[in-house]
């Protein structure tokens, strides 16, 4: 079984894993930002990613441009997320911390069914944008252009997110509110608006993850829960509320899934949960989790 393995195959699989992991990173970092700021574990996170995937499908069908598709997916779904936060989550702040989790769970049951009513049960495919189809050859290796795009696009998003959080005033306020919400309020800042913005950013990242994954695996109503599950596992592995954890955890899980599907295909779905169990055994708070927040 291992005789025909060459370095090429391993490098290719690593590449696949990094592309998959990039999508996981986007998902988990959104979840982490929302949890850090609002103390809400968003069960509907993958559901919003699914909405992003459908938004791309609609926009590409209407305009034919993939770039417009991604941009509109992020904006539309982030606005939807903001509305959901305002109408549904706001009344629950300050009550039992499990209620928002339960409410977003209800959304993740209901919304896919509404999508089935509107778009039908069959997945909606979006073809690779022309500029990104094809592959780049590097010696004996061939990299799919779209997967390269996914990796570098995620990198660009993460860098701009980092710059936004570190350098801009709003980013600084968000970081401060994550650390101590009451103190920020005392300084005369309307934190409920900050929370809405933070929630919209988190949802926007989820929508982005859904949007860029469509050409690789079509938009289906039930993709949402799978994505929520991935986001949860990555978050437990990386540490809840930690952005660095989301990045390292996401890439790690992506690579692990890619390699298990190479060596033991039928375990590919089980591998990430197994990895989570191992992390829980040896480092319960996750790779980058703060002590006391687990």
């Amino acid at each position, binding site marked *: 079984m291992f005789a025909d393995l060459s370095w090429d195959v391993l490098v290719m699989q690593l590449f696949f894993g990094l592309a998959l992991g990039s999508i996981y990173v986007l998902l988990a970092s959104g979840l982490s930002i929302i*949890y850090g700021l609002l103390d809400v*574990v968003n069960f509907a996170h993958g559901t919003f990613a699914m909405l992003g995937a459908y938004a791309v499908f609609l926009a590409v069908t209407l305009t034919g441009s993939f770039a417009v598709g991604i941009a509109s997916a992020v904006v539309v779904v982030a606005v939807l997320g903001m509305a959901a936060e305002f109408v*549904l989550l706001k*009344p*629950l702040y300050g*009550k*039992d*911390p*499990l*209620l928002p*989790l*339960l*409410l977003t*769970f*209800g*959304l*993740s*049951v*209901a*919304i*896919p*069914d*509404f999508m*089935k*009513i509107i778009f039908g049960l069959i997945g909606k495919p979006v073809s690779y944008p022309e500029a990104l189809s094809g592959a780049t050859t590097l010696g004996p290796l061939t990299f799919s252009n779209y997967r390269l795009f996914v990796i570098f696009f995620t990198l660009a998003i993460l860098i701009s997110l980092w710059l936004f959080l570190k350098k801009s005033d709003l980013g600084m306020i968000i970081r401060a509110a994550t650390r101590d919400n009451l103190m920020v309020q005392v300084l005369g800042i309307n934190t409920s608006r900050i929370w809405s913005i933070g929630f919209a950013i988190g949802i926007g990242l989820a929508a982005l993850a859904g949007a860029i994954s469509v050409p690789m695996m079509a938009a289906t109503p039930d993709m949402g*829960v799978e994505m929520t*599950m991935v986001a*949860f*596992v990555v*978050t*437990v592995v990386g540490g*809840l509320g930690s952005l660095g954890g989301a990045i390292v955890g996401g890439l790690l899980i992506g690579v692990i899934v890619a390699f298990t599907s190479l060596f033991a295909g*039928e*375990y590919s*779905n*089980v591998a990430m*949960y*197994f990895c*989570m*169990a191992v992390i*829980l*055994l040896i480092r*319960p708070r996750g790779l980058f989790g703060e002590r006391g*927040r*687990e």
Partner: protein
Amino acid sequence: MIDPAERQKMLQEVAPGPRSTIVWIAALALAALPLVISVPLATEILIWGISGLGFNLLLGYTGVLSFGHAAYFGLGAYSAGLALRYWKVGLFASLAIGIVSAMLLACFIGALAIRRRGVYFAMISLAFAQMLYFIALSPLKEITRGEDGLTHIPSVAFFSIPLDKPRNLYYFVLAVTVLMLYLTWRVLQSPFGKVLEAYRENEDRARACGYNTTLVKFTSLVLSALFGGLAGALNTLYLSYVPLTTLYWLTSGTIVMMTILGGKGTLLGPLVGAGVFLFLQNTISLYTPRWEAFVGSLFVIIILVFPGGIVGTIREKYMNRKMSKLQHRAAGAGE
């Protein structure tokens, strides 16, 4: 002023613990259930009600949210089914195998994750249930028959009464339900039940009182898995089949939704919730296969408007009326 004995009596009247008569009244009502709705639906209500009773012990009384109860339900269903199919065991052995395997799984998950904070535990339990789903789906396909589910499960008999007749099975499941309801009531009346509630109300204070809160949560989880495993095994008897969906995340979600719909932290809430949920599901399914859209939206509204659920909201209304009456009387006595 009111004298202390009178005050004690009034307090008892305002916040009574559920009396054992509730168990027997519920038993009578459930015995009459097949007169109102079809026998299979009634059986399903009892089976899901049992798993809800266990889930409620954990969420409603201990305050721990598990999103992975499908793991206990499904493992109970599969292990009972496998034992019936391959080992040809009897009724009680199959139930016992379902219960024990679910409790062992709870010990494993509990040992790994029970120390984690509330939302963390919810995420981890969901992930473990999903892991079991994928294990049954493909690596263990040879044993579990993967996506097709486990078929060819022989029917069993309770001593000499065959349980493949729907009505016989219903009354057998009813007896088990009443037993489990009584057991829940006993647990809640016991000192251990009070510690569970103490943990839910204030973990730090319960620990300061000298209770090992980790052990309390762990025991509650394992006890809850007992109910889940039993319900799963009963579900196998009822269907003579184990569908893969018993391990699916929506099974966990169904148990969560039923319990909260009925009223978490109330003795009868899970049974009422299972009844209303399954009745709605059955009725809506007559018109459209998209019942999840309706039930999910209903659940969102329940969380927003009536977080106490059906039984919890009724109880609160009743308490408020009683309280104002008592205040009235106290004001009269004070003059």
